[in-house]
């Protein structure tokens, strides 16, 4: 069995074409089979391997390749927009928008304050003038495919903040539902 194609050709053109077709019928399945086998073997043994099926349903929370397995992670995620409406009306939580400031200014949830994740260290002192470790917080970013809110929440919970929730639908989901959006005044 010949593994290596002789792409130098030679002989009659008809023979070369016939030879090429035969090798494609062998070569393509061989290469694809090799790749698929290597892929699943590597994924199974590698630390960064992912499950065969991820969590890609935005109704169930933030989408990700590795489904949430911890009860803690599931308990801080909120996808109920009506609940968020009540929070806005009652003002019983500090709502934090983790998107870049320029994006925040174009539109944000009513009552939200801007604390971009990318500027976390620069804004931390300012942030602590508006809350304590016991302040109930609701964090959001752009949508179910954004994990900035989770990263922000992780930082806060590691700093012993006790009441942190994440609105998983984010600004895009909120706006898509036709809910009230505030725009920063120039």
């Amino acid at each position, binding site marked *: 069995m010949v*593994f*290596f*194609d002789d*792409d*130098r*050709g*030679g002989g009659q053109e008809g023979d*070369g074409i016939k030879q*090429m077709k035969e*090798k*494609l019928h*062998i*070569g*393509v399945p*061989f*290469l*694809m089979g*090799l*790749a*698929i086998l*290597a*892929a*699943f073997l*590597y*994924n199974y043994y590698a630390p*960064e*391997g*992912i*499950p*065969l*099926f*991820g969590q*890609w*349903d935005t109704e169930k929370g933030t*989408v*990700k*390749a*590795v489904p949430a397995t911890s009860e803690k992670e599931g308990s801080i995620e909120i996808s109920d927009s009506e609940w968020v409406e009540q929070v806005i009306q009652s003002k019983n939580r500090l709502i934090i928008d*983790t*998107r*870049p400031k*320029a*994006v925040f200014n174009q539109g944000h949830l009513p009552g939200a304050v801007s604390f971009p994740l*990318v500027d976390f260290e620069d804004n931390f002192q300012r942030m602590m003038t508006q809350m304590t470790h016991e302040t109930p917080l609701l964090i959001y*970013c*752009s*949508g179910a*495919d*954004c*994990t*900035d809110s989770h990263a922000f929440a992780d930082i806060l919970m590691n700093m012993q903040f006790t009441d942190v929730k994440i609105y998983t639908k*984010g*600004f*895009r989901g909120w706006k898509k539902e036709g809910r009230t959006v505030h725009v920063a005044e120039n």
Partner: protein
Amino acid sequence: MLQKTDYTFILVFLFKLILGISFIWASYTKIQDPAAFAKIIYGYDLFPGFSINIIAIVVPFIELVVGFSLIMRLYPKSALLVINIMLVVFICLIGFNLIRGHEFDCGCFGSTGLSSTASAVVSLVRDFVMLGMGVFLWKKMGTART
């Protein structure tokens, strides 16, 4: 004095190298972080949820294997056929999303300096150039001295 066939030989060699290395390099970053690649696939908004992780696991290794095969002459025409098909698929996916105005925004635009649209256009141009190389190779591979 180099003959026309010598230029063809040099171009075939160069294009094989460029295509092969490009696919190998593209696969490396995806293999290192399949979860991030799965997120990108999700962002195209074209694939059913149950297929996303499987695509993220398999596609990088197809890129790796065909990249190596093209350079190492292990079924190079078969590898080239797969490469060209993948490039056509990538072009169609990116082009379709550009046409329908679909942008994948993780809320972090500006961190790379390019909007998602500009990034998609750059990828589209790059893939067209690579497909041009692939078509050239397909026509030339199998002739004398190539």
